[in-house]
């Protein structure tokens, strides 16, 4: 464990303690997120750190780390820009947005700008088709984004601003985000309240409310029958 701060070792122990005794290997994914929060990617040293903690070989850890796309094998930028180019986002503008950012940033898929500011990727479905086309910056959602808006988001980031995502929390760096992915609460108390639900999320509920629709016959005191009674 030489070269690793007491703080990160303490966090690693905390992660391992979440899982049942004898099942420590379950901690591997969060530990790899933890490594990424420290180094910005999963380096050979990071692989060794996890292997030593869990009593695994480096090959076992590398085999897992290389399976999952969120573990970066080269240092990633501060801002990971993921453009959804799956079918729905693709037809509604995602393909064009990805091309615009590729030209604007001068990097391709899974590449980082030379100054280490941006990593660009095209993402598979980001589970936000009702907000399509979407992109995320460090996994926070920017909804209904077309190419010109995407370029402006990137420009503001380059200028040192932090544009507010539509639904996620205020932006933090990829390393800070990785600590949360390792299962540690966001240290910014206000972040959890950021990002109110957008109109598509509420569309059906609002329609029902506007027309005064409720499901009839709902009585929270309905008794729970015994198993014998109901058979």
């Amino acid at each position, binding site marked *: 464990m030489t070269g690793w701060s007491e703080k990160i070792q303490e966090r690693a122990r905390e992660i391992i303690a979440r899982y049942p005794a004898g099942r420590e290997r379950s901690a591997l994914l969060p530990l790899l997120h933890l490594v990424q929060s420290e180094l910005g990617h999963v380096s050979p040293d990071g692989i060794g750190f996890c292997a030593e903690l869990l009593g695994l070989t480096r090959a076992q850890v590398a085999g897992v780390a290389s399976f999952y796309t*969120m573990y970066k094998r080269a240092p990633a930028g501060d801002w990971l820009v993921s453009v959804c*180019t*799956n079918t729905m986002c693709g037809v509604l503008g995602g*393909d064009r947005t990805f*091309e615009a950012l590729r030209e604007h940033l001068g990097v391709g898929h899974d590449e980082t700008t030379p100054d280490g500011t941006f990593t660009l990727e095209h993402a598979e479905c980001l*589970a936000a088709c009702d907000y399509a086309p979407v992109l995320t910056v460090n996994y926070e959602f920017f909804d209904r984004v077309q190419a010109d808006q995407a370029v402006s988001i990137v420009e503001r980031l380059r200028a040192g601003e932090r544009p507010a995502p539509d639904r996620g929390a205020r932006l933090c760096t990829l390393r800070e985000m990785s600590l949360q992915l390792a299962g540690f609460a966001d240290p910014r108390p206000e972040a*959890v309240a950021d990002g109110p639900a957008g109109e598509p999320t509420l569309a059906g509920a609002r329609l029902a409310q506007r027309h005064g629709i409720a499901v009839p016959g709902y009585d929270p005191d309905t008794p729970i029958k015994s198993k014998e009674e109901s058979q």
Partner: protein
Amino acid sequence: MSEPSGAALAKLTPVLTKRWLSPQAWRREVYEQLDGYTALRKALAAHPDDLIQLVKDSGLRGRGGAGFPTGMKWGFIPQADGKPHYLVVNADEGEPGTCKDLPLMMADPHSLIEGMIITSYAIRANRAFIYVRGEAVHAARRLLHAAAEARAAGYLGTDILGSGFDLDVVIHCGAGAYICGEETALLDSLEGFRGQPRLRPPFPATHGLYSCPTVVNNVETIATVPYLVLGGAAWFRSMGTEKSPGPKIYSVSGRIQNPGQYECELGITLRELIELSGGMLPGHELSFWTPGGSSTPMLTAEHLDAPLDFEGMMAVDTMLGTTAVQVFSDQDCPVYAAYRWIEFYHHESCGKCTPCREGNYWMKQVLRRVLSGEGTHQDVATLQDTCDNLLGRSFCAFGDGAASPVLSSIKHFRQVYLDYVEGRRAPLFPTPTARPAWAATDLAGVSR
């Protein structure tokens, strides 16, 4: 925008989504003001077996795509076997088109936590996990916050509300592998391995997490449980059909006026859903659609009145899936849709089974060739042949799912394939390796 008809409006069943309208319902105090944790108190006063029976009586079927009866799944857990039991919530939402669990976890995370406590009590589990998709960071943030609040209030931990029941919940973030939404791959991933599906039997009910009895349920399924405990099985069955009862969150996206989440009774039709979502966009005419994500074979305008429930979709040779209703118009190309989805299956195939790993690799290239205007008649046959070698020949349903967009697009839109092959339709890509034609052009107006 026209108002929906009374018949369509009558299909709305705001149950799970109703609380979403209250700002900050993700906070415990707000959740409690809106009946939160009353179902837990009621459930803890009942016998666990009675709760399993209640879920069986309700007819609730899994909301993650397969529609397996939830009560039966819980009933498969062997009791008094001396082994630890586990509940694992599948929150690895990522099937193209599917977008219901993320908004639920962001807007109302406590309903999932409360459902988990009740479920764990029923199946006698003292440890539960939420495997949440890694990219869903804001959902994970809200869940971590909710679990901490629940722990502070005595809803989690030891001797919950004086019942003697103990439960610990762990929020476990994935790392970007769609295949981990497959329940056995999810379990392998949660155990710290590559997420690859297991051969079944044995099933997770007896040999799940750490080879112990395990229930794996989808987010929406578990979030339904508190309402079921409060309102009862008969009330639940007042919605939907006999074999597909209850409310269901339909995620409607695409060429419609108001895309979004519409919670309706099972059995609603696409015609009614389009009405509820404000109609098609001006100038767009319905061409093809998926009832429940990319793995469910696409349908056409012919199927506007087919009931969107488990049986109704089987009757038209597709599946209900995750009720991710993606609506495409005459301005969208079904071959492009199949290509993008196969790109996805190629990227996300875990590589364990040869037909899926190799089949998607080749189909992606063949589709690309067709879209580049360099396809042949043989290519269409090759695609069908590849699908025949995929279907039913992989460990998990992912391989079968990959065949769906290809076979269904050929079935309904063979002419479009032929139009590309025979040069009647302009290629979407200038060459098999170039970027899409519309993406490379028209960037002049983009600000620099």
